[in-house]
C-alpha cells in the first residue's frame, strides 16, 4: 500500500479495484497452469492456455472515504462486500487497481482470527497490539484498559483455547477498538457478544464515531446503514450499482430487494402459510432483522411470556399481547378498515441504561416490510416502574391493510433506536375484506360526485 499521493483529507481510496479468483477443479490443474500455458504458446497442439475457471468477485470498484466519514456497504450475499473490506484491511490483494489507506485500521471482520490459541489472553493482547502497530510502552498502558473492557479478568492468564466463543470475541473486540484506530471496518454487526457486553460494544463504536473515526460499515441491515451512514455504496455482482447519499442508495436497494422477494415468493407460492423466514431467508428483509435471530412465540394468552430464556442482560421483552377489537383471540382474524389491532408490550430494562424504545413491524408473506412504527419516531417518551418494567401498547384502528396474511414482530431498541436489545416474532394475522379491492393498503379517501 502506498502512502503518498493521497489527498490530505482522504483516508481510504480504492481505485478501480478488481479481484479475480482462479478456481481449479483439482490440484493437478494448478501445477499444469505453471508450465503448460508456456508450452502451449510454442506448441499449440499441446496443453491448454488456461486450466482454471475465473470468478470475479470485484470488478472496477472505486470509492473514497474522507476523514470522519461513515460509509455503508450494502448488497446481497456474494456481491463482493467482504472482498472489498478485506482489501481495505490489507488481508486480500487485488488483481488489478490500487487500494490506499492512511492510518491504523481496526477490523471487526473475523474477531479473534489472529489469536494464537496456545497463548494466554494477556500474551495475545500484546501480540495483536504489536500487529496493530503499538509500541511497547503504549501496549503497557493499554493492556489494563483492554482487560477491563473485555470483562474477563479472571481468565486473562489462561490460554485462549480454553475460552468460550463469547470470551474470545469480547477480548478481540476490546483489542481492536482500544488501539485508537483511524479507520474502523465493521462487517455486519454493530455490537458483539450478548446482553450487557453487546450494549457496551455498541456504545464503544458510537463513541469512536463521535470522535471522528472513519467508519466503513458493511451490513444486511439497511435500517442501521441508513441510521448511521452519510454515504453508502451498493455492490451487485462485484460492481458498484449505486453510490452516494445513504438515503438514496438504501431506497434503491430496498426496491431491488422487494422485486427479488416478489419473484421468490411467486416461485415458492405452493408452500402456503410458510412465512417470510422460509421463503426469503437468505434475503431477510425485516429492517431490524439479521443482527439478532428473532424468537418464535405463540399467541395464547393476553400477556404471553416471551424472552424467559432469551438474552440475559440489560433489557428484554417480557411479554407481548395481541388483541382484536379488544378481545384476545386464538387466531387473529381482522376485517379490513373495520377491525382494530392492539399490540401491548411489556419489557424490563436495567437502570444502567436509558429507557429503551419499542418498534412493531408488520411484514407480508414474502418477508417485505409492509409497515412499521416506533414510539421513538412518534416521539412518545416511555417510563419504567421501580422494578425496571415498562408497559406500552399501540393500537391500529380500522386496519388499513387489504386482505392477506401478515406477520407481526416486536423489537426492543436502544434510546437512539439503532442497537437491538431483543426481538420477537409474535404471530400472524389474517385480514379479509368484503369487496374485491386490489392492492395492499386501503388509503383514507373521500369520494365526491
Amino acid at each position, binding site marked *: 500500500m502506498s502512502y503518498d499521493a493521497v489527498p490530505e483529507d482522504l483516508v481510504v481510496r480504492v481505485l478501480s479495484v478488481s479481484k479475480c*479468483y*482462479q478456481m481449479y477443479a483439482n490440484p493437478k490443474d*494448478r501445477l499444469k497452469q505453471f508450465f503448460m500455458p508456456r508450452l502451449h504458446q510454442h506448441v499449440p497442439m499441446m496443453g491448454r492456455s488456461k486450466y482454471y475457471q475465473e470468478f470475479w468477485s470485484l470488478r472496477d470498484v472505486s470509492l473514497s472515504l474522507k476523514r470522519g466519514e461513515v460509509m455503508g456497504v450494502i448488497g446481497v450475499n456474494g456481491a463482493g462486500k467482504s472482498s472489498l473490506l478485506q482489501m481495505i*484491511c*490489507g*488481508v*486480500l*490483494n487485488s488483481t488489478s487497481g490500487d487500494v490506499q489507506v492512511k492510518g491504523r*485500521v481496526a*477490523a471487526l*471482520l*473475523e474477531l479473534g*482470527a*489472529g489469536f*494464537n490459541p*496456545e*497463548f494466554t489472553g494477556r*500474551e495475545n493482547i*500484546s*501480540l495483536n497490539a*504489536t*500487529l496493530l*502497530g503499538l*509500541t*511497547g510502552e503504549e501496549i503497557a498502558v493499554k493492556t489494563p484498559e483492554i482487560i477491563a473492557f473485555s470483562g474477563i479478568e479472571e481468565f486473562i492468564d489462561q490460554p485462549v483455547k480454553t475460552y468460550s466463543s463469547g470470551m474470545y470475541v469480547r477480548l478481540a473486540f476490546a483489542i481492536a477498538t482500544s488501539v485508537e484506530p483511524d479507520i474502523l471496518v465493521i462487517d455486519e454487526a454493530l455490537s458483539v457478544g450478548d446482553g450487557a457486553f453487546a450494549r457496551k460494544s455498541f456504545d464503544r463504536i458510537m463513541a469512536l464515531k463521535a470522535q471522528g473515526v472513519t467508519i466503513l460499515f458493511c451490513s444486511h441491515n439497511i435500517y442501521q446503514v441508513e441510521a448511521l451512514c452519510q454515504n453508502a455504496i451498493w455492490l451487485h455482482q462485484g460492481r458498484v450499482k449505486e453510490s452516494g447519499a445513504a438515503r438514496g442508495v438504501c431506497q434503491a436497494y430496498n426496491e431491488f430487494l422487494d422485486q427479488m422477494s416478489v419473484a421468490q415468493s411467486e416461485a415458492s407460492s405452493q408452500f402456503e402459510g410458510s412465512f417470510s423466514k422460509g421463503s426469503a431467508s437468505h434475503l431477510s428483509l425485516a429492517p431490524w432483522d439479521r443482527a439478532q435471530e428473532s424468537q418464535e412465540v405463540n399467541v395464547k394468552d393476553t400477556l404471553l411470556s416471551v424472552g424467559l430464556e432469551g438474552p440475559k442482560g440489560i433489557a428484554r421483552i417480557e411479554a407481548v399481547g395481541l388483541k382484536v377489537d379488544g378481545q384476545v383471540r386464538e387466531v387473529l382474524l381482522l376485517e379490513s378498515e373495520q377491525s382494530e389491532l392492539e399490540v401491548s408490550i411489556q419489557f424490563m430494562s436495567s437502570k444502567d441504561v436509558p429507557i429503551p424504545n419499542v418498534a412493531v413491524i408488520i411484514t407480508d408473506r414474502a418477508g417485505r416490510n409492509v409497515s412499521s412504527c416506533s414510539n421513538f419516531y412518534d416521539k412518545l417518551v416511555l417510563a419504567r416502574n421501580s422494578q425496571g418494567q415498562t408497559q406500552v401498547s399501540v393500537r391500529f384502528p380500522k386496519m388499513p391493510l387489504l386482505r392477506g396474511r401478515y406477520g407481526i414482530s416486536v423489537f426492543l431498541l436502544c434510546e437512539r433506536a439503532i442497537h437491538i436489545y431483543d426481538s420477537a416474532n409474535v404471530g400472524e394475522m389474517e385480514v379479509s375484506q368484503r369487496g374485491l379491492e386490489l392492492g395492499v393498503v386501503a388509503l383514507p379517501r373521500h369520494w365526491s360526485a
Partner: protein
Amino acid sequence: MQETPFLTGLKAFWRLLWQLGCRDIQTRYKGSVLGLLWSLINPVLTVVLYTFLFSVVFHTQWEEDFGPKDIKALASTSSSHGQYALILFTGLMLHSFLADIIQRAGQVITQQANLVKKVVFPLHVLPAVVVFASLFQITVSAIVLLLALVVSGQTAYVSWLSLPLLILPLVILGLGVAWLLGALGVFLRDLNQLMGWLVTALLFSAPILYPLKTVSQKMGTYLYLNPLTYMVEDWRHVIYGGNWPNWGQWFTYLSLSLVLAVFGYAVFGKMKKGFADVL
C-alpha cells in the same frame, strides 16, 4: 522526534520475533516433565550414539592439531572416547542448528494459515522465529559445552569471546534458508519429503563425524561447499585451540550469507502474495 516508518517497522518486527520466539521455545517442551532440560539431553544422547558407532566400533581417531594448546592436554582427564565425544558435540550442535531450520521452515507458513488469510501479519517474522529458536538451542548447548570443558580441567580461552560473532554468518545463512524454504514449502509440499535427506547429507559432507584430514586434499576442498565445514573447523580451533577465528574466511562467509539472505527475503516477499490463494 518522529521515527521513520522503517525504524518503527523494524522495532515491531523484533518485538514480534521475541514474543513468538520465546513462545516457540516454551511450547516445544511444554507438558514434559524435564522441560527445557530436553534441549540438553537430546544432543547428549545423540553424541552417545555417534561416539559408540564411530569411536568404539570404527575406531575413528581424532589426532588433529588444534593449535599450540592442543586438546591432547585433555587426554589426562578423559579417555579418547570422551575426547571424540566432545569434538563431536561441537560439530553436531552446529549441524542441528541448520538442520532444525531446514526441517521446520517448509511448514512454518502452512501451519499458520489463519495469519496468512485472516489478519494483516508481517509473515517474514515466521521463518525468522524458527531461526530464533535454533539460536537459543545452540546458545544453551555452547554454554554447557564450555562449562563442561572448564569443569573437566581445560583452560578457558579469551578467544571464546569471539564465538557469538563467529556464528553470525551461520545465523544469516539460516535466515536466508528459512525464508526460501518457507515460501517454497507453501507451493511445493513435496519439498518437505526431501529435507530429511538434505539434513543427513549436510551431516556427512562436513567434517563432523571425522577429521577433515582423513579425506584427500581435493575432496577436502569440495567439503568447503558445505557451509558447515568452515564453521565446524573454526569453532573447534577457537574452543579447543584457543585460536582467534580466521577473519578473512569469516568475512567471505558473511558476505555470501548476506547475499543468500537478501535473495531469500526477496523471494519470500514476492511469493507471499500468492500464499492466501493456496492455503
